[in-house]
């Protein structure tokens, strides 16, 4: 890590002979550079404005999540997942809960699934807003960013009503939610569904057919599909290359099979396609949320928000103070003493930037024996040097922000 700054391996060689009046420069992009939108470093070898090669140094905010997870009871690991892709923390939270539920063979009621889907799709919209707005910023269009960030704010207000937190949400519990959605949460969700489509359309009008934006983005940083698969691309980046792989459809989890939505795909895998795929996905997410809200309203049951697993779901406080059973369960859950079977599971969810996987090995102890997080951007960001080879620096920055690399997820 340290040698990256002081002396990159290619510092001394690779210089073109002076006779050609040409010399390569080494440019440190990052670790804390406003254009990287996160703490990671790129050592670029530049031929004028053109990038000859790139080498990344990551790990600046490595927090040893996998090691810490081996020492924590299952329910405490949720807070670690918050801090991976912090732009869409609820997806990570739910993914972790579902992994543990898979290990424990817990079946969640439909209503819980639908509530989860509302939270996850709102998070996906929030994440895509950040990414697409930032693509706009990197092309010089700041208006879209300031315009649409209010709506991300509004999504965070909904999260605040659901779980009490905004960014690192720690939303939900193993088995469901900590509490039911309150009236304000429902009202705000419905209000969001009402007004946001118009807002999103305006945002699209600002950028989508904007000549400058199109000139900057079309054919910028294209990536062929076969290379994308070899590099383990998932999520919008893979779909922009033209393959309709979406975990929500391939391995339906959380009752996604009950919903009617499309998987948008691109063609060239360039910045514009990635932007468009995300943009279309926001519309699909809105569709999903609308269906989920309708389904919840049609249900006669308005109170279920957890599965029926007293070993994992904290009982209400009145019961803890007055009933023996509830007190025992409360104590067992808080101390992390609930029984866990031996086994191993891999569960993946469609995170906002790709397939977010959790590989969980349990040896029957109170903490996992091993947790491995498949962080999508850790896998696909390694393709960056190949993507930017031979293109201009300003295009490389655009490619980077369109890949949606989140430093917290990259470094775990």
């Amino acid at each position, binding site marked *: *890590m*340290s*040698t990256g700054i002081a002396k990159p391996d290619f510092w001394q060689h690779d210089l073109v002979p002076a006779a050609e009046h040409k010399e390569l420069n080494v440019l440190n992009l990052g670790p804390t550079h406003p254009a990287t939108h996160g703490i990671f470093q790129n050592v670029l070898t530049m031929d004028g404005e053109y990038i000859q090669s790139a080498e990344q140094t*990551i*790990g600046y905010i*490595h927090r*040893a999540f*996998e*090691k*810490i997870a*081996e*020492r*924590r*009871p299952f329910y405490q690991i949720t807070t670690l997942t918050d801090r991976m892709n912090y732009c869409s923390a609820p997806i990570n939270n739910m993914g972790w809960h579902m992994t543990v539920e*898979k*290990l424990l063979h817990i079946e969640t009621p439909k209503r819980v699934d639908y509530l989860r889907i509302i939270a996850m799709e709102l998070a996906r919209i929030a994440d895509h807003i950040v990414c697409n707005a930032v693509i706009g910023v990197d092309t010089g269009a700041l208006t879209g960013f300031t315009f649409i960030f209010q709506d991300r704010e509004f999504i965070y207000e909904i999260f605040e009503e659901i779980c009490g937190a905004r960014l690192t949400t720690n939303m939900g519990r193993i088995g469901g939610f900590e509490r039911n959605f309150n009236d304000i949460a429902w009202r705000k969700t419905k209000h969001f569904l009402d007004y946001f489509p118009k807002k999103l359309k305006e945002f699209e009008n600002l950028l989508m057919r904007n000549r400058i934006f199109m000139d900057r983005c079309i054919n910028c940083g294209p990536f062929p599909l076969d*290379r994308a*698969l*070899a*590099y*383990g691309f998932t999520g919008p980046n893979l779909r922009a290359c033209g*393959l309709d*792989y979406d975990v929500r459809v*391939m*391995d339906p989890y959380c009752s996604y099979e009950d919903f009617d939505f499309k998987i948008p795909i691109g063609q060239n895998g360039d910045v514009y396609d990635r932007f468009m795929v995300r943009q279309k996905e926001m519309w699909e997410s809105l569709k999903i949320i609308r269906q989920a809200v309708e389904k919840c309203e049609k249900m006669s049951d308005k109170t279920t928000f957890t599965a029926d697993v007293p070993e994992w779901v904290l009982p209400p406080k009145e019961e803890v103070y007055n009933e023996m059973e509830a007190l025992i369960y409360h104590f067992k859950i808080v101390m*992390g003493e609930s029984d866990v079977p031996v*086994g*191993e*599971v*891999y569960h*993946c969810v469609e995170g906002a930037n790709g*397939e977010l*996987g959790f*590989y969980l*090995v349990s040896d029957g*102890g*109170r*903490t996992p024996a*091993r947790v*491995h997080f*498949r962080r999508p951007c*850790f*896998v*696909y960001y*390694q*393709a960056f040097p190949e993507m930017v080879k031979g293109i201009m620096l300003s295009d490389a920055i655009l490619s980077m922000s369109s890949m949606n690399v989140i430093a917290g997820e990259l*470094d*775990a």
Partner: protein
Amino acid sequence: MVDRLGAAFPEAVLAQEQFHDMRCFTVRKESLHDILRFLRDELDFNFLTTLCGMHYPATEGQEDLLGLVIHLHSFRNRHRIRLKANTPLKDPAFPTFTDLWPATNWMEREAFDFYGLTFTGHPNLKRILNMEDFPAFPMRKDYPLEDPTREDKNDSMFGR
């Protein structure tokens, strides 16, 4: 699928188990590379989802083992499998898989960084998340999470 893998590598598959929805094969370390190539080319497992290290501390009658866990995914058949291979701690070398999937480049570096697994033929095998002069392989079970010399804090009641 199981039959074809067994027929192609009768010696190499040591054990197979079913965990929930996923079939898991424990294979001989020497043939792991060939098996992966076979799975990719013949059985359509076109996508490598994860590759990560494991550490099994020594128990009675068994020495310290390091493991490698790989998840493969066949998009066409909508099928996932898990492959495992173990190696003694003293000989942590695997062949590199970067020639099959370039995606394993950083995953292998991560496994090296965390567990000290080495990958013969890897283009750039150095630490990735920890600093380069880090003195240990932190994900091994014998590496303490907290500073062991600390006396002001006793949390033996929590965690393992």
